[in-house]
């Protein structure tokens, strides 16, 4: 069985199990139908978004392959999935009148899920197109073509596994209702995950051999940049809070 297939399905099941464990541990601000509404928007938006950004990664290749189902079906991007899910959830919440922040419970499952999925990407090798540029560093990996490359999939796994305890502490901080002096409020767990992951991808993709679409940046980096700007207000809020705390 293909490693990509095995680890991608493992990632889905592990992420879902992790979500239910966290929901039991921290509770849920939404009612059952509200949660289903948001989850459905997130997964459908994520699936469609992952495809759309994959196609936009290299518009010239897309135009050449408009009648090639293998190309149209044969790829997706995690960043596209995240931003597609985010946009779909925000639209759904607006349409159905759901007001509370809803993403905190997804942050850790997403981090674990992406890390597990990346194991499949790493084991798949060159055909997965997730490897990095050639390198002479001792931890460079030869994926089968005799060239030592940055194992960017492993960098991502290490980063995400390091992020999980921080996200857990943020969730704990959010759930401490008795404390008035809190940096993080409801919704900040997911925002922190998005900021951390999109920042990581923005910088990590500089060492990937993808085509540059505009101003020396790749399509995924542009998507990261746009959504980092979207969350910039939250970074300012967190920083300002820490500054106020120091002055007290």
């Amino acid at each position, binding site marked *: 069985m*293909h490693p*990509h*297939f095995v680890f*991608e*399905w493992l990632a*889905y099941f592990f992420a879902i199990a992790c979500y239910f464990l966290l929901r039991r541990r921290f509770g849920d601000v939404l009612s*059952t*139908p*509200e949660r*289903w*509404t948001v*989850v*459905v*928007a997130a*997964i*459908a*938006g*994520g*699936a*469609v978004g992952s*495809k759309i950004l994959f196609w936009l990664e290299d518009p010239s290749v897309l135009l050449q392959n408009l009648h090639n*189902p*293998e190309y*149209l*079906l*044969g*790829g*997706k991007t995690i960043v596209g999935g995240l931003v597609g899910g985010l946009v*779909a959830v925000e639209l*759904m919440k*607006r*349409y*159905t*009148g759901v007001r509370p922040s809803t993403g905190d419970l997804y942050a850790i499952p997403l981090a674990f899920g992406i890390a597990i999925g990346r194991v*499949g990407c790493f084991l*798949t090798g060159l*055909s*997965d*197109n997730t490897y990095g540029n050639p390198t002479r560093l001792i931890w460079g990996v030869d994926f089968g073509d005799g060239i030592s490359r940055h194992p960017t999939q492993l960098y991502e796994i290490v980063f995400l596994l390091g992020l999980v305890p921080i996200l857990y502490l943020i969730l704990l901080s959010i759930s401490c209702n008795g404390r008035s002096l809190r940096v993080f409020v409801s919704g900040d767990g997911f925002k922190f995950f998005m900021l951390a992951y999109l920042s990581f991808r923005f910088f990590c993709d500089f060492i990937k051999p993808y085509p540059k679409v505009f101003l020396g940046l790749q399509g995924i980096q542009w998507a990261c940049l746009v959504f980092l700007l979207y969350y910039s207000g939250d970074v300012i809020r967190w920083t300002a809070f820490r500054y106020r705390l120091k002055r007290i």
Partner: protein
Amino acid sequence: MNIVFTIVIGFAVLIATLLFLSCSLCAVTGGLSGQGRAISAVLALVSLGVMIGGVFLIARINQSKEPPE
């Protein structure tokens, strides 16, 4: 009743999404034969239709009674 409909449609969308993603596993679809690719494409399109239809249906069932701000 809305809760039951929401959960049932939600499950359908969840399964359709997993099917859609399975049909587009980048490394796996590359190894399929011509007929396999055609079946994969049809399955992906059908599951995409179920996904989008399900999302709109759930949104309609749970539509807010108040006008959006």
